């Protein structure tokens, strides 16, 4: 969120702290949902359970504040508009004592409210109404946040790309990529999953040319795809924008 003040430390996800189960399955993520509106609470709990989380529900601010501190959860989903002890009070009470990130959920959307929530230690903010998928995505990304830095050697399909050495191998054999092609590929791979416009690619990768024209990017990408063989599918054309590096789940490594 743009409003997050820089001095507020991010709370480390507690997911890492939990021991793996004996069977070797990934540990179940346990969430605490604090929501007083019965139908909203039911919707959230069902949705989160369907997404594979263990969910505890609290409908009262005081109870929630106690459980956030004393119980072990991986993440708390906190509604701000609670009867009695409000969401801001809960945040204030558990500040510096919460063991897990708190995702604030509220119908209030004014900037001062958002800022206040972040100042009181909220890790993320979601405005009502929202998609349960959106909440799940936010929770997952919040729990994943402390994952290791992106790898510098990227493998997908039959391709291995070394971002530092700026070399590529296809089916174990080195391929010769022109500086422009390697620049385009590196730029896309480093921004995996994000669409990049032709003009930005032209600016970044064709800077050495006298006349960086957005459309020449297309011909470079076409040549690049031919050289990458079966790995070419990971460079996806994005309608109206340009390209995106997105290896399909099975071929990514």
């Amino acid at each position, binding site marked *: 969120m743009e409003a997050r003040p820089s001095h507020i430390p991010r709370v480390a996800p507690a997911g890492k702290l939990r021991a793996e189960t004996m069977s070797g399955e990934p540990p179940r993520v346990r969430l605490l949902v604090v929501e007083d509106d019965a139908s909203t609470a039911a919707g959230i709990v*069902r949705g989160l359970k369907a997404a594979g989380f263990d969910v505890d529900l609290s409908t009262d601010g005081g109870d929630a504040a106690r459980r956030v501190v004393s119980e072990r959860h991986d993440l708390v989903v906190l509604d701000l508009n609670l009867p009695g002890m409000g969401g801001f009070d809960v945040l204030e009470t558990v500040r510096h004592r919460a063991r897990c990130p708190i995702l604030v959920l509220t119908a209030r959307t004014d900037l001062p409210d958002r800022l206040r929530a972040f100042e009181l230690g909220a890790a993320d903010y979601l405005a009502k109404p929202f998609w349960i998928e959106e909440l799940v995505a936010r929770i997952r990304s919040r729990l994943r946040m402390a994952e290791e830095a992106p790898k510098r050697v990227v493998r997908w399909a039959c391709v291995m790309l070394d971002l530092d050495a700026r070399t590529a191998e296809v089916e174990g054999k080195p391929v010769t990529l022109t500086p422009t092609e390697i620049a385009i590929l590196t730029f896309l791979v480093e921004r995996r999953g994000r*669409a990049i416009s032709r003009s930005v690619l032209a600016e970044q990768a064709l800077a050495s040319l006298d006349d960086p024209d957005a459309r020449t990017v297309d011909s470079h990408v076409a040549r690049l795809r031919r050289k990458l063989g079966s790995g070419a599918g990971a460079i996806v054309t994005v309608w109206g924008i340009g390209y995106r590096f997105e290896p399909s789940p099975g071929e990514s490594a």
Partner: protein
Amino acid sequence: MRLRRPLAKRVILAAVLCGIVGFVSSRFAWRAVTWAAIVRFHEPLADYTWEAHEKMRCEASPATWSIPLAHGAHAYAYDPATLSSLNPEAPPLRRDLWAQVERGPARVAIGARGLSLASGGALVHRTGDAGPCAVVQTVWPEQPLQADVLAWFPMGILFAAAAAAGLGFFLIVRPLERVERHRQELQRHLGDVAHDLKTPIASLHLALEQAVDGNRDAEVGALLSRALGDTVYLAALTSNLRMASEMREGWNPGTTGAQADLGEIVERVVDRARFFAKRRGIDVQCARPDGPTKVDCDPVAAEQALSNVVQNAVTYGESGGHVAVVLERRDGRFSLVVSDDGPGVPPSEIPRLGERTFRSDEARQRDPRGSGLGLAITSEVCTRCGWALSFGREEPRGLRVSITGACR
């Protein structure tokens, strides 16, 4: 209360103007009335004095006849045939006064010099039909206003101004304030209602979303999907209503001192739009610069403005369609383009997009929901943040919405 300050200045200015105009015009009116009375009184008296004493003296020596009067005034005789006097010291005959008395004897006209407020002027008296003494003009030199009149002048203005201000306050400001108070209460109420609606909409939304996903019956599925679309629309409508109510209260998202990172907002809006778009079979993608693109605008307002445009593109797009949101930054300016390959808008209606309450006929036919509030809010936020909003056609089909402005 909010009206009192801006209106007070105007009421005071209007009151002062009323005071000056009222005082000056009352002085002219007073002069006109008094002189009419003087004329009525003077006519027989002057006739009598003339016939009894001065007629013979004038006719005996018209070239030297003149009578000195009080306050430095002098009377001279004139010939109506030549409109001049035989006495070389006589000033010219006032033509305007002569025009009033020329028809016959025993008539008097009196007049000041020009529009001057100072005392002074001339009196023309028709004494006979013809001859060098048939017209007598008395001229008295202009004299400064007397001290008491000068003292009354500003007091008169002040009094008139105070009276006008008091009247203005009771007749205009008070009733207007009452109207304004009601309007504000209504506006606040609207904002509160919009806010309170979010919780039930949220639970509806959650329930419908999961019902759609868990449903196996195609017909029921279609109904549920449509209802889910309605909640998406309702959610946007309540957010827009709340923002409209805040902006009508005078809130300006461009001057709150807050900064928004457009890059982050683009991602946030597109991420959220995807959930709805996915269900409609529409692909939404975005591209943004690596670093932040900071603009002077309240982030909530900027998000709402962009969200309205993206949601429009998703709502009116067709299954299999695309929406692309591209944010670029160059030389201290940003350009944000939202394009789609949906049905677009006829060229004749493009200039009216963004107008309050305007909705294109085609949009109305395709989907009777909607008030056109979304794009109006976007347009208002852009205006208040100093951004340029423009609409165009995407080739071969679709709409292209472009927002440009300054960034840091």
